[in-house]
């Protein structure tokens, strides 16, 4: 427990450093949001009036202090286009969370099923799974997305090409809108899941307790499911945690391809429009989510294998 508190404290310090770095990078990049709001030929007077109204004319240190205090107080203000930041982020979280979680479930399912199906080395099944993992890891996300859209949306007309339907419009529409992006993300990430989990499962199958079970006549698949599975799980949880954090923080590419209004595309837009406050808030939230996922995963690993105290 002490270690968890220490972890939280170190994460908080890291968050402040990170927020400062991102705010600095965006705020001190050449140009500001007036480039997006005002016309190209706006005079210096109009630009200065805009900067004054948006607080961009204040010294950098004050701007950062205002940003940090408003973040901590929960009063996140407005975007450069005038939308309320808290409401905007709240509307984006379900999108990124939906595709991240569904692709995680898909990746886990692919890893577990294919690992059990290819337990034996040098078999056609093993070769096929290895080939699938290599292929899915090497196809760029953009290309796999395009192939999925062409097949499932244009030819078969089963899923929408792009866009997001919230859960309030019905579970079917919601699932339909996140299915292809999640599948494309899962295809990319599942190779790591498969290779790591299959290796762990095979090692577990070679351990003394699994051999002992086999020597009593237990079938190989039964041994894998009932004996070797749980000891192999911590490594899968660890990979899942890392991948989830990566998905939450780096979903911009998939959101851009599928025109999904998620946190990743919002981060890109914030950086391009020089909305330093919004960019800083998003990075802080992403880092907090990453830290939370990491801590939860270590707790789960500890629950799965209490001997692993060093992990927590």
């Amino acid at each position, binding site marked *: 427990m002490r270690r968890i508190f220490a972890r939280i404290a170190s994460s908080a310090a890291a968050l402040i450093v990170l927020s400062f770095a991102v705010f600095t990078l965006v705020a001190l990049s050449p*140009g500001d949001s007036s480039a997006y709001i*005002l*016309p190209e030929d706006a005079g210096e007077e109009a630009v200065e009036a*805009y900067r004054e109204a948006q607080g961009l004319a204040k010294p950098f240190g004050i701007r950062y202090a205002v940003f940090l205090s408003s973040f901590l107080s929960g009063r996140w203000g407005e975007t*450069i286009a005038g939308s309320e930041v808290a409401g905007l982020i709240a509307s984006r979280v379900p999108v990124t969370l939906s595709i991240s979680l569904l692709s995680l479930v898909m990746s886990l399912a692919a890893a577990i099923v294919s690992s059990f199906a290819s337990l034996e080395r040098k078999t056609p099944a093993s070769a096929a799974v290895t080939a699938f993992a290599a292929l899915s890891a090497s196809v760029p996300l953009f290309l796999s997305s395009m192939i999925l859209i062409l097949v499932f949306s244009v030819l078969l007309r089963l*899923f929408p090409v792009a866009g997001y339907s919230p859960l309030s419009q019905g579970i079917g529409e919601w699932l*339909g809108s996140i299915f292809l992006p999640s599948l494309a993300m899962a295809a990319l990430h599942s190779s790591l899941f498969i290779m790591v989990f299959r290796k762990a499962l095979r090692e577990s199958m070679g351990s003394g307790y699994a051999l002992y079970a086999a020597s009593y006549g237990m079938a190989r698949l039964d041994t894998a499911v009932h004996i070797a599975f749980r000891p192999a799980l911590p490594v899968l949880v660890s990979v899942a945690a890392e991948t989830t954090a990566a998905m939450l923080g780096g979903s911009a590419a998939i959101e851009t391809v599928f025109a999904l209004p998620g946190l990743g595309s919002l981060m890109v837009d914030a950086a*391009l429009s020089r909305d330093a406050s919004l960019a800083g808030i998003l990075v802080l939230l992403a880092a907090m989510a990453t830290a939370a996922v990491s801590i939860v995963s270590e707790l789960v690993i500890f629950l799965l294998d209490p001997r692993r105290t060093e992990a927590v």
Partner: protein
Amino acid sequence: MVRIFLSIAMFILVSCSSGHEPDALSVAVAQEPPSADLMVGASVSGRNILAGNVYERLLAYSDGKIVPVLASSYTLSDDGRDLSISIREDVLFHDGSRFDVHDAVLSLNRWMDSYAAASRAAGGARFAEEDGRAVIHSDSSLALFPMMLSSSPQCAVMLPSECIEDLQPGEIISSSVPGTGPYRIGRWNEGERIRLEPNDDYRGEKPEIGTIDYFFVKDPSIRRLGLESGQYDFIDMVLSDDIPGLEADSGIRLLEGSETGSIAIVFNKKEGISTDQGFRRAVALAVDREALMRACYGEHGYSIHSDYMEHPWSVDPSLDAYGSMDLAESARYLRESGYSGETVRILVSNLTDLDKIAVALAQSLEEAGIRTRITVLDWAAFLEKRRDESAWDIYVSALSRVMLPLDKLYLSPSSPGGLEDSECLGLIAAVGEAGSMEEARELWEKAQIRLWEYVPAIVPGHYSTVYASSAELLGVDLSDGFHFRNAYIGNGSR
């Protein structure tokens, strides 16, 4: 397990195959308006989506004529220095409040505060209420003012006076501010879509199309695939490479808008080698205009001519002595200029593939013996860098169509790399002072010919956006962007 999975899959497939309402339209656009403030911003996306639909002007430019919208009439005095506008009395804002002359005067004055060309044209004068009309008296000619009111890129839209009075200096209008148009903003999900819903209290003929969803889809391939799959009814900014494929699809109609802007290669006339007129002429004669436009647009969606303005200001481009490639003449001008092998710095943003034009330009110049270096930045950084006139010699930009020469950015002395030739400036100022449109056009022809001689900028060509729609969508107005006011879903007969 397999059964459960298949059941879930079938449920998803059945659920997401539902279509949209028959009178609703689903549109995929490349860009989201940066804000709802059409007076302050000049974005094409804002005009396409909000202008005319949600927010309306007093006057509009239609079929070459200025027609009243929220005005009932307007009169210009014989000397062109007094403009008086009468306001319609049957107009309601979306919140039910009545539009009156006070709203009009405050809106017009805020527009003039934001729009430098209008402020200049009026010589500092502002609108006031007189006998229930919006009136402006100026010491300079206001002959072009109705044109500005009807078609300026920063729109003179009408807003409720209380919304304008509540604004702090520099503050922009939010999307919650009501307009008077046939649609109201149903919702604006930043980064996803704008939904326009019918304004049931609209005074005039209501559009046939009910709800319009404008989805922001940056990737052109996804816009195309969305149209082909039936998810979208209309898409903008079709890629040249996609045109042959879409042409072959009988369920899709390709639409080419009128010229919507021009590419401009603007010289720095204040510092560096580009201050030399001979050097500028050498560059103008070295440029392969076709290669430049093709680099950005491919085979479709542009025309090659060196006019600075689009219709109705066109001037015979054959009068441009430096308007086509002539490497021998270019070499002669280069020798006579002060060019001594220094690197010419080309500044460009990565917006809408403009960097490809910069690469083609650099290639043309290198072949003519001019050394080049290209700096590609994002839009905000580009604008910031361009302000520093010691940092560049040439910048490449795209300028959307403007209705008056005064609105052309690079024809202003205060613009980056500013125009400082007194003859050019005098002629351009005279256009603004003209007593009528005909006189203004004649003066502009003289100004254009002088500008071709002086070469403050090169216009290699003009672009026209290509759109695509489902074959059933008819009546889309493409005269200035795209508008669905008269659009309907049908089979060709109405």
